[in-house]
Structures are given as structure tokens and as C-alpha cells.
């Protein structure tokens, strides 16, 4: 008998999807849609939080609910909720499409929740595709259609190509081992580690998730898509979508314990960090900058994954949380600063500290976190990642990562400079800091600083979650 209770977060999301499917057929009412989304996503977050204790094997062993997956589901629900919070009076999507917008957002969240629970290659593949396609469409829904379509098309092309690569890798893995269950793959591992076909297959398989996480060389969509997507959608891509990718990468990385994988992941990590940080330096569009910064953050996360031990997985998990909070804070500013459907440039942040001091503070903390400056959560996360990697003797990797951190600080400081001491042109419209935004900013500051400074509980949690993986 299946334990349906264990599925409650997914089921709730399914209900949400139903609600918005219905809404999409009624007369458009953006305000009501938002309110509804706010309520349902908050409930989703609650359900996910309540569901952390669930565990079980479902659907003939293709689906596993455990602390690891539930932790990620919480993050995903949180990401969903936070992004919905940003959608009040959303300008990025036409009013009559907002029900569809929330629908797709919910579908994507559901897909990713299932993704982190999948332990069968088929489920993995189909959930990944579902989340990808909903995102392609979300990107294309932008009010500025020309932009949205272009970005959506590019996102789609890269995504489809990556998924083809991944599928081919899946075929190789399945063809060599004859099983599609992760458990069985793990069991077959001692026999298969020497198999080039298996290794290549696994690498190509990981490629699909590298695409999600925007790891080099699958990062090529990121800048254009962040730039082209509506601001809340970009926020969603940068937060929830990344979290899910980390989760499933951690699940899959267990299979690739050979030196070859460590090397390849190290190369990819270094390339991602370097390319992301270097390219971000010259950006003027804030979202594009954040896109490159995401590429770099993906590189850092790979450092934890390539440690191939529970400490590394825990670190990657911790960092996924950190990225969620930090990136969300940045995008919160993006959404608030943006005028209409425009993309804010860095200069548009001018005067932020005066008109929205709390938000400016939150932005500062987020940027410092991304740049790895204590006592923010970003630093603690990096410390965990680097400690895990160092324990495996990857000194050079850590050093390169640290050098990258320094490079990245250059552009984070540039953003900070704009927010804190560029004088806005007097006729420019300025941000109004509403009370809910203030509260949200404060909550983010608290999350970043408190957990950054006193990370004990979160570390314990991620450790317990990661221990279930290997």
C-alpha cells in the first residue's frame, strides 16, 4: 500500500496546478491570481516543511522520499513562495496571462520536487523535461515579446540539445549496466567503474543537470535567458531551478567516484568559476551580471560535489540553500528597481540606500555572501565546500576558487558602489520600500547573517540529509 501522506507536498502542488488551470480559463484578474498564488505557495511551503520527516519508497521503487529529498523540497517550496512574493503588481507578464504564469510556475516547482525524489533514470528524465519545458514557456511569456521569444528560443535550443546529450548518456549507462534504478547502478558500480561507456554515459547524463545549473560548457544560455526573461522568472531560474539541479547532481554524483570524474568535475568547476566571474566583470545589465555570477556559483558547488564524500554533499546542499537566499535577495532588488518590464542596469541602483535602506542592506549582505565575505551565509557555505575539497587534497582547486572569489568581488563591489554611492539623476523614478518588502528584506538579512554566523543547525541538517545519499 502506498503511503500517500509522504507525497503531500507534491499533491498540494498538484492541487495548486489544478486551481490555476481553472483560473486560466476564467476572466483574467491579476490581483486575485497573485493573492491566490501567495496563499497556495505559502501553504506549499508549510506542507513541505511539515513533510521533512516523511520517508518511503514509492511507485515501485522509482521514487524515494527521504530527508534529503524533503530538504530540497522545502527549498523549492520556499523558492516558489519567495518568487511569488515578488509578483505583486507584476509588470513582466501580461495581466491576462498571469494565471498561466502561476500555473507554469507551479508545474515547474512540482516537477523539480519530483526530480529530487527520483531514483529511477526514467522518472529523472521526464521530470527534468517537465521542469525545463515549463521554464522555456515561462521565459517566452514576457510582456516584451520580442525579447521573451528570443530568450525562450535560445533557452529551448540549448536545453533540448543538452537533454539530447543527456538522453544519449542515459542510453549508454542503461546499455552498459542494464538497469535504470540508481540503487542498482550503485550496486553495479564496482564492476562498472572501469567501463568507458559507463563513464562517458554518466558524464553525458550529468550534462543535462549541468545545463540546469549553468555549468560550463552548458552555461551558454544563461546570460541571454536571464536578460530576456521577465524579472520574476529570472529570479525563479536563478533560485529554485538551481537548487533542484544541485539536489539531483548530488544524487547522481555518487555514481562517479573515479579519478576521471573528479578530474572532469574539477575542470568544469574551474572553467565555470573563471568564465562566470571574468565575464561578469564587464556587464552593465544587472541581470546579465547575475547570470554570470550564477555560472560561477555553480562552479563553487561542483567543488563540493567532486569531493565525493558526505561532507562534500552536505556542503553542496548547504550552499544550495545559501544560493537560494542570496540570489533571491539580488533578484528582489532587481524586481523592485525595475521600471515596468525593463531590465535594470547597475546604474539604476543609484540611490537605493536612500530610498530603500533595508533593501540596500539586504543587497549588500547578499553580494557579500556571493563574494564569500563573512559573516554571511555565502562565506560559511564556501568554507564548508573548501574544507570538504581540502580534505580530499584538492588544494590547488581551492586556491583557484579563492582567486575567483577575489575577482568576483570586483563586480559585486561595483554593484554595491552603485547602490550606496552613486547619485541618482533627480528625475529618475525611485523605489518605494513597501512594508512587506521591508519585512522580506529583513527576513533575508536575518537568514543570511544569522545562519552565516551560527550555522550549526543547518550544517547538522545537511549532514544528516547527505548521509542518506551514499
Amino acid at each position: 500500500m502506498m503511503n500517500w501522506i509522504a507525497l503531500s507536498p507534491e499533491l498540494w502542488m498538484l492541487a495548486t496546478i489544478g486551481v490555476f488551470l481553472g483560473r486560466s480559463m476564467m476572466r483574467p484578474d491579476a490581483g486575485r491570481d497573485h493573492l491566490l498564488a501567495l496563499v497556495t505557495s505559502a501553504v506549499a511551503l508549510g506542507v513541505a516543511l511539515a513533510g521533512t520527516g516523511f520517508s518511503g519508497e514509492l511507485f515501485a521503487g522509482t521514487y524515494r522520499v527521504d530527508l534529503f529529498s524533503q530538504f530540497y523540497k522545502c527549498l523549492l517550496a520556499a523558492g516558489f513562495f519567495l518568487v511569488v512574493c515578488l509578483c505583486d503588481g507584476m509588470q513582466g507578464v501580461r495581466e491576462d496571462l498571469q494565471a498561466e504564469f502561476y500555473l507554469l510556475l507551479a508545474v515547474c516547482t512540482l516537477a523539480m520536487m519530483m526530480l529530487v525524489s527520483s531514483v529511477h533514470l526514467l522518472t529523472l528524465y521526464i521530470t527534468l523535461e517537465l521542469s525545463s519545458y515549463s521554464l522555456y514557456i515561462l521565459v517566452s511569456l514576457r510582456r516584451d515579446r520580442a525579447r521573451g521569444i528570443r530568450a525562450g528560443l535560445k533557452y529551448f535550443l540549448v536545453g533540448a540539445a543538452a537533454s539530447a546529450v543527456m538522453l544519449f548518456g542515459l542510453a549508454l549507462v542503461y546499455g552498459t549496466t542494464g538497469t535504470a534504478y540508481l540503487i542498482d547502478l550503485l550496486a553495479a558500480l564496482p564492476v562498472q567503474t572501469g567501463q568507458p561507456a559507463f563513464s562517458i554515459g554518466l558524464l553525458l547524463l550529468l550534462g543535462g543537470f549541468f545545463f540546469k545549473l549553468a555549468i560550463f560548457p552548458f552555461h551558454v544560455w544563461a546570460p541571454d535567458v536571464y536578460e530576456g526573461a521577465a524579472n520574476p522568472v529570472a529570479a525563479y531560474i536563478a533560485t529554485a531551478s538551481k537548487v533542484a539541479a544541485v539536489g539531483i547532481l548530488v544524487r547522481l554524483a555518487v555514481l562517479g567516484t573515479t579519478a576521471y570524474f573528479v578530474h572532469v568535475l574539477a575542470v568544469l568547476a574551474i572553467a565555470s568559476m573563471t568564465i562566470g566571474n571574468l565575464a561578469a566583470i564587464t556587464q552593465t545589465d544587472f541581470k546579465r551580471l547575475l547570470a554570470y555570477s550564477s555560472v560561477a556559483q555553480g562552479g563553487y558547488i561542483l567543488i563540493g560535489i567532486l569531493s565525493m564524500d558526505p561532507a562534500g554533499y552536505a556542503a553542496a546542499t548547504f550552499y544550495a540553500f545559501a544560493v537560494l537566499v542570496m540570489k533571491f535577495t539580488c533578484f528582489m532588488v532587481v524586481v523592485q528597481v525595475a521600471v515596468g518590464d525593463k531590465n535594470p542596469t547597475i546604474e539604476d541602483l543609484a540611490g537605493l540606500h536612500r530610498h530603500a535602506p533595508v533593501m540596500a542592506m539586504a543587497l549588500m549582505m547578499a553580494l557579500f555572501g556571493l563574494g564569500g565575505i563573512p559573516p554571511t551565509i555565502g562565506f560559511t557555505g564556501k568554507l564548508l565546500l573548501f574544507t570538504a575539497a581540502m580534505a580530499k587534497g584538492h588544494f590547488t582547486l581551492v586556491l583557484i576558487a579563492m582567486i575567483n572569489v577575489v575577482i568576483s568581488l570586483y563586480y559585486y563591489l561595483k554593484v554595491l558602489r552603485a547602490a550606496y554611492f552613486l547619485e541618482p539623476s533627480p528625475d529618475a523614478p525611485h523605489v518605494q520600500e513597501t512594508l512587506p518588502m521591508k519585512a522580506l528584506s529583513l527576513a533575508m538579512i536575518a537568514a543570511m547573517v544569522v545562519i552565516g554566523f551560527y550555522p550549526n543547525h543547518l550544517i547538522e541538517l545537511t549532514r544528516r540529509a547527505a548521509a542518506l545519499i551514499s
Partner: protein
Amino acid sequence: MIVPYSHVLALSGLLFLIGMVTTVARRNLIMVVLGLEVMLNAAAVAFVGASLRWELLDGQALVIFIIAVAATEVSVGLALVVAAYRKTGSVDPEQLEETEASA
């Protein structure tokens, strides 16, 4: 006895290659989407071969979903292409970048 599994794999690999080159090299968005379809098809061939090799049905099950995804892909992809064509009047992938610069 048909052929070794590796020959099926080789066939699938060749198809994948063709799809890949098409995706990368053809200067036409419709052909690019077509190339993607070919790549999916290539993977499907490999799965069917693998399924026979181990005499397990998981591979065949996957192919069903590949076909479903292919359908999605082509509908979404072509919708995007058409939308882009409406905006720019062309299916030249370079349009995607050039207008970007001017925007």
C-alpha cells in the same frame, strides 16, 4: 542472433552525429529543431537496442517517453520558431543575436 549491441550503438551514434551537426551547422531554425529530433531518435534507437540486450523493458518504456518529449519539443520549438519568425520575418538563427544588439 541479430547483431552485436555495439553495432546498434554505432548506428545510434551515427544518427546522433548527424543530428548534432545539423543542429550546429544549419542556418535555419527549422532545421535546427529537426536536428534535435534526429538526436532524440538516435537515443531511442540506442534504448531499444539496450533493452534487447538485457531483455528488460525499462529501455522500451523510456522510448515511449522520448516520443512524448519529442512531440512536446516539436510543438513548443516550432511555436517559438514561428513566433520568432513573426517578430523578425526570418528563420535565420543569427536574427536572434543581431536584434539583441540593437535592442
